[in-house]
């Protein structure tokens, strides 16, 4: 996170901060506080993968995700614990994130990968989909590649791309039964989706991770780089849609508003803490006899930028999570948009 330095002066930062803390906030690109950047999405772009997706944001940020699956022997398949049923492990899923101009062992990149991973495995249902029989399981490699330079914090982009790639992921159909060595149908047409499509769909859908910041009292979704640079709090909130089997009587009921499940929350270190502070006009050290260090951390002067200190109140965190989980809110809107993408 520390690598994404913004080259903004204290005066510019203060201008951004003031206009974003107005009610309603005025964003520099004219979006509403809950509006996402427009995006173009495509699935099934890579032939050699089990599932793939490409998402391009309107500002030029572009990411590709490829999902590949391979069969692996489950170690210590003991015959003793038959009662355990499908015992799955989180490490059957591997996520690697590659961001240009960053080392792959950079702490920020690993943080991103772990965040996406824990959202995916959050409810323990996903790993069970990879279970073949007691001796074998699928191992899933999810490779996330950011093509453009990191314009803003790439988390929402990578998360949406991963979501689409997982929806498009297909695994060969199993022909063998029980604990035999697995045998699969050669026909790719008869392969099965990891996340079943409409119809017999029940259970959790793949997660999406939203980046939410607060400036003043305002909750702002999908911040751009400049907005992130003045944010007081940045949270990454992962949610997933839960689909329940509908009984016959409910078919005509208004389907608006999905059931959303909270999977994980992580605080992200806002880059605003690394921004240079402004110096109030009256306290220039040349005109005032006092040493500069006494003036540095006095109470903030209105109109002079100062990097935020301290943490977040619980009520602010609560407000953010409420805004994410709200019915018909941003998460719904984003999922609606992604539902429109044709799965190849």
């Amino acid at each position, binding site marked *: 996170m520390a690598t994404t330095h913004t080259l903004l002066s204290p005066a510019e930062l203060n201008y951004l901060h003031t206009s974003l803390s107005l009610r309603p906030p005025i964003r520099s690109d004219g979006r509403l506080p809950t509006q996402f950047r427009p995006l173009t999405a495509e699935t099934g772009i890579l032939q050699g993968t089990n599932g793939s997706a490409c998402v391009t944001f309107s500002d030029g940020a572009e990411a590709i995700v490829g999902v590949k699956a391979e069969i692996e022997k489950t170690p210590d398949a003991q015959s003793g614990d038959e009662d355990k049923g499908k015992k799955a492990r989180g490490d059957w899923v591997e996520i690697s994130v590659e961001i240009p101009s960053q080392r792959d062992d950079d702490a*920020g990149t690993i943080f991103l990968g*772990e965040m996406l991973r824990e959202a995916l495995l959050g409810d323990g249902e996903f790993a069970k989909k990879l279970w073949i029989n007691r001796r074998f399981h699928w191992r899933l490699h999810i490779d996330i590649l950011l093509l453009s330079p990191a314009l803003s914090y790439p988390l929402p982009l990578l998360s949406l791309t991963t979501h689409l790639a997982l929806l498009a992921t297909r695994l060969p159909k199993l022909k063998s039964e029980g604990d035999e060595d697995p045998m699969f149908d050669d026909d790719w047409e008869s392969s099965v989706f990891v996340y079943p499509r409409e119809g017999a769909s029940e259970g959790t859908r793949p997660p999406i991770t939203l980046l939410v910041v607060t400036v003043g009292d305002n909750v702002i979704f999908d911040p751009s780089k400049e907005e992130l640079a003045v944010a007081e709090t940045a949270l990454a909130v992962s949610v997933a849609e839960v689909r329940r089997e509908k009984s016959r009587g409910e078919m005509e009921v208004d389907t608006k508003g999905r059931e959303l499940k909270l999977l*994980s929350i992580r*605080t992200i270190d806002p880059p605003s803490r690394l921004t240079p502070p402004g110096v109030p006009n009256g306290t220039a050290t040349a005109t005032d006899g006092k040493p500069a260090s006494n003036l540095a951390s006095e109470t903030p002067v209105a109109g002079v930028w100062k990097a935020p200190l*301290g*943490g*977040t109140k619980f009520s602010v965190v609560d407000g953010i*999570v409420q805004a994410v989980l709200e019915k018909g809110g941003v998460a719904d809107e984003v999922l609606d948009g992604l539902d429109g993408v044709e799965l190849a």
Partner: protein
Amino acid sequence: MADRRRINGPGGTTLPPLYDDDPLPRPTRSREPNGVRPVYLKTGVTPSASGSAYLEVESRNGAPTTGMKLSCTVHGPRSLPRSAPFSPHMVLTTHVKYAPFATKSRRGYLRDASERDLSTHLETALRGVLIADRWPKSGVDVVVTIIEGEEARQFAVDQGSEEWDMMNVLSACITVAAAAVADAGIDCVDTVSGGVAALVSMSGDGKSEIVLDPVATEHDEILAACCVAYLPSRDEITNLWLKGEVSSSDPSLYRTLIARAVHASKGTSQAIVGSLNEAVTGA
């Protein structure tokens, strides 16, 4: 990330010999649901560092689970190297490293993904606390070494509880780092302390319950857990990490979970205050 420059041996596990005939009983939680394990915290243990602290989370006598032992050293604030770009603030770097012998499976000398992840969390927790603009053009390194991680020794097969243990480790890292930063005399808005709360399923009936300071092996299954870094006197959270199945039937459950984690951190913050008082008065 794997070390690509050297040819390393396979990363195997080292297990103590295990005999079939004497199975140790599975540990059970004997504390109250809102009980926190006692901790031992001492500052100023490393003379060569500008600030240091040592934290031990106690295990009960004869308990098969081990406690945690962590040490933290703070180097700096010191001037940045000439090649570094200008920074109006103190540059904070955090390193979290398991000692190779800290856990059942040996940890290599290179930091792996979970250790890097922990160090990012720790950095977020500390950065909100430091008054960094009092030290322009300087850097400070916070190094946490986990000497003994929390793991049950008697289980031959690991139960996939490491991901939940990480929450406890992070909470301990935050606490020990806060004490070491205070020992180094770096200005902070408050002393930060870590706390963990978890939603566990009860063994008998299918009900779930929120407990403070969970030990993964003492419970059947942990459904969700939350770790916070909390500033008691400002009533603020600098780092929040929540994951797991927070059931959608009770929409306010995550709130309870965060509130309980904050409650747990208040307990550990008393330990920090106590040990800092002790260091000041020289008692």
